[in-house]
């Protein structure tokens, strides 16, 4: 079986080490799958960070991704690098997490930005928290579009492909999200809080 799996993947897109570990994982080799996890966990965890900053929830999200990866590994066709496929699964798992949360959690107030800092000198962590708390005010589909555009460099086409949405739908959601985000930032007096009014 492993030889068949190895032959199936495009050698130009799938790394040799990945091909061997995927084939071994499909054969039930847990150590091989653990190697895959350790290799790709930083990328998955970094994307998961954009879905939640709560340590326990994020840890669970990362686990959810790899559990889902394990059970759908047979469906990986190898026509794109493994990391692309993992990002797609992470996005879907994160989106499901948001949709579950949006039913029971009210939007959070904007993170504290004090003390104000010049534009290029805001602490990256404070900036991340502020952006995330602004995005939390958006409905999950719009939040997802902006999150992927802002933090995963995704184009409209890529988001559409990742989520199975149409391109016009993604464009419309991006447009609405930006309009809504601007209104929220005005309501929350973002410029004053940042000290960027002048």
């Amino acid at each position, binding site marked *: 079986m492993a030889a068949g799996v190895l032959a199936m993947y495009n050698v130009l897109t799938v790394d040799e080490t990945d091909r061997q570990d995927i084939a071994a994982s499909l054969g039930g080799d847990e150590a091989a799958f653990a190697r895959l996890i350790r290799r790709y*966990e930083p990328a998955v965890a970094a994307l998961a960070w954009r879905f939640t900053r709560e340590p326990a929830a994020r840890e669970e999200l990362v686990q959810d991704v790899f559990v889902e990866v394990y059970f759908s590994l047979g469906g990986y066709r190898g026509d794109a690098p493994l990391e692309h496929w993992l990002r797609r699964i992470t996005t879907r798992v994160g989106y499901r997490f948001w949709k579950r949360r949006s039913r029971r959690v009210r939007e959070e107030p904007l993170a504290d930005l004090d003390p104000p800092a010049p534009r*290029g000198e805001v602490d990256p962590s404070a900036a991340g928290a502020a952006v995330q708390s602004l995005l939390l005010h958006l409905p999950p589909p719009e939040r997802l579009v902006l999150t992927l555009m802002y933090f995963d460099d995704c184009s409209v086409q890529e988001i559409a492909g990742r989520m199975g949405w149409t391109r016009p739908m993604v464009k419309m959601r991006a447009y609405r999200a930006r309009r809504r985000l601007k209104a929220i930032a005005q309501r929350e007096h973002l410029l004053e809080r940042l000290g960027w009014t002048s």
Partner: protein
Amino acid sequence: MDELEAVENLVRRARQERPPATDAADAAIRRIRAGAGRPVRVLPLSVLAAAAAVAAAVILALAVHAWTAPADPQAALFPTVEVAAL
């Protein structure tokens, strides 16, 4: 600068953030061993398609049979009138 530009400025700074590391491998493997997250198996689509095709074939056969059966049920009530040759 408007609010949207301010947000995009914040995004540029936020992209430099280094998220804390996670260690999910052992827990994920434990969950896999326990079978958590295993997709619920439904009958393969091809089996369902075959069952639907069989059902459709039976219905078609019955319909053709009914269509080609000789009769209007009322036909027996009206015996054929033989027209006498003039």
